[in-house]
């Protein structure tokens, strides 16, 4: 029983010594990703060729846009932040076996919380206002996920459903805030008025500057990794996810932990919303959640329980997403192609488990 509690999802560095070797173990970890990505691109290339476009031109712009120009790099990093945070919002509750499909709603409500303070207290200096905005975002996201957590622990309402339904409520909520509470009539699109100067994350470098939310996110990556690996709560969360019954036998209060996982996930997604407001848009606008929910889930599933893998996979997905736009411009391949390739990578990654089991057995 203790074996099931500690074994997954251990990275190679902490693997027990009895395993074959660290190099082999690391290879087993990396090769499936490489093979899946290559296969997904091959299948994607065939589809692109089938609709009469040049797959090589398309892939060249997908893979190089992020690194060709400073602008592309900054854009990728700016995309990396919400994708990664939404991936955490999905992966942290998943560590306790719960599916959070509500990162989009949590992000939007977090953005609402952030923008509310940014507008109401717009005269405050940055040193006071900026932390308030970010904290308000995280709190608002936590409260929003907290509704689902409450319904789950008190009434056994399935968290997949409640978090999804809350997304749709949040769409209406931000539409209301953007059109009735702090409307910007001149924007031509439902949006709030800009937040005060002090609510904006400072930029680094000349135009276009990188916002410091990127550094904040790096810090958060470390905090979460330490939390999951080194604290007893993190250990308990992983134990619950690995084997629910074993965890209960060992006296872990599973339902409370699962609820806490959802709330923490919501806080992270809410923070993403606040960072989007403070770093990218300077206000809240409809559609700012883009595809972050879907991308977060894809990253969360690809990481397969490893909190350490998340930032790297999220970066890869951000590269693809930024490349998608330029692919559409230069090779006339619709942006949706990238979503199909991402789904294919995920499916091939799942299949790799079976291939791996077969190879190991033979």
């Amino acid at each position, binding site marked *: 029983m203790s074996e099931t509690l500690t074994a997954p999802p251990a990275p190679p560095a902490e693997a027990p010594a009895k395993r074959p070797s660290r190099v082999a173990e690391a290879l087993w970890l990396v090769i499936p990703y490489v093979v899946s990505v290559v296969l997904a691109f091959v299948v994607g290339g065939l589809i692109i060729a089938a*609709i009469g476009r040049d797959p090589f031109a398309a892939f060249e712009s997908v893979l190089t846009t992020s690194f060709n120009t400073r602008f592309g790099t900054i854009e990728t990093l700016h995309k990396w932040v919400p994708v990664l945070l939404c991936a955490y919002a999905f992966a942290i509750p998943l560590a306790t076996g719960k*599916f959070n*499909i509500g990162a989009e709603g949590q992000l939007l409500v977090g953005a609402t919380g952030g923008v509310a303070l940014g507008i109401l207290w717009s005269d405050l200096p940055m040193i006071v206002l900026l932390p308030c905005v970010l904290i308000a975002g995280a709190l608002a996201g936590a409260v929003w996920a907290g*509704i689902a957590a409450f*319904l789950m622990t008190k*009434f*056994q*309402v*399935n968290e*997949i*459903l*409640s978090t*999804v*339904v*809350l*997304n*749709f*409520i949040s769409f*209406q*909520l931000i*539409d*209301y805030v953007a*059109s*009735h509470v702090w409307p910007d009539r001149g924007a031509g699109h439902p949006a709030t008025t800009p937040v005060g100067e002090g609510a904006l994350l400072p930029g680094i470098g000349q135009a276009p500057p990188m916002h410091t939310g990127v550094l904040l996110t790096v810090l958060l990556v470390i905090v979460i990794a330490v939390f999951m690996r080194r604290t007893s709560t993190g250990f308990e969360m992983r134990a619950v996810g690995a084997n629910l019954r074993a965890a209960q036998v060992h006296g872990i209060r599973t339902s409370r932990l699962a609820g806490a996982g959802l709330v923490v996930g919501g806080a992270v997604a809410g923070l993403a919303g606040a960072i989007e407001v403070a770093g990218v848009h300077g206000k809240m606008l409809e559609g700012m959640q883009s595809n972050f929910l*879907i991308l977060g*889930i*894809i990253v969360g*599933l690809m990481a397969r329980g490893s909190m350490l893998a998340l930032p790297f996979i999220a970066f890869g997905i951000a590269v693809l997403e930024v490349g998608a736009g330029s692919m559409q411009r230069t090779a006339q391949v*619709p*942006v*949706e*192609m*990238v*979503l*199909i390739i*991402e*789904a*294919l990578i*995920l*499916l091939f990654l*799942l*299949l790799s*488990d*079976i291939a791996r089991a077969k190879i190991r057995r033979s």
Partner: protein
Amino acid sequence: MGEITEFLTLMIPAMVPFLLAAQGTVLSGRAGVFNVSQEGLMVLGAAVGFLVSFKAGSNTVGMAAAFAIAGVFGLVLAYMTTQLRLDQFVVGLALYFAALGAAGLLYREVIGITMEPPLIPTLEDKPIPLLSDIPFLGEVLFDHDLVVYLAFAISLAIWWFMYKTRSGLAFRSIGENPKAADSLGINVTWARTWSTVVGSGLVGMAGAYLPMVYTGLYTEGMVAGRGWLVIALAFLGGWRPHLVVAGAAFFAGMEVLALRAQVAGIGIPHQFVLMLPYVATLLVMVFAFRWARQPSFLGRNYDRESRLVG
């Protein structure tokens, strides 16, 4: 037309997407396959149904195409979960993304960017002779397009199959205890495969109905979370086809109510009115999860060689 008659007359067609998709979900769910790709399959069904109707000039062909393409996705889900025993939720989510991407790609490729969005003819009402002459009931129940009748007929057929036939009993036992079913010579894999293919096909049809009934055009956000509500509906109906009909009436009623309140302008900002169906769903789920039960093997893969479960 009285207020109530009008409300009910609008509600019946609004039930159709919920009914078709939820019965499809229930069908595979009772064999133990928990499909979570509904939202994507409905979007794909709407896109394919629309495009094929537009190109072929026939809504029937469009419906059939939507059924077929979603059925193919169902086949992939069934193969990956019954043969390869991959996690049902994860495969379902991956298929959701793939379907969403495919829908956008297809629409953009076939239609391109146009100033005037293309239109297809909406479905015509086909009153049933004699029955539609009954006062009140005739107007409410028997004066709709053919897909409405089809959706109710499918619901009836699934209920009849599950509860009134011997093979239906065997079929239901798979979702409760596949090992026991297997030992009685019931082919678990085959039952899960066909029910997932047919069930997914119904979800695709549910999506295709959307562009065909209201506006005749396809827009990206037109499914608007109905695919997820359908899963809630399956739970709400306790995975029983007849109760799902009642649940679909509730969801459709909420939808019509929100639309009408928005048009009538009742003094509340329309955003709060549009929240109504979702808030009601949350509240109802609080009660639904207390009394509704689900197939005990729902969402779990069956491995006949494993001695652990079943």
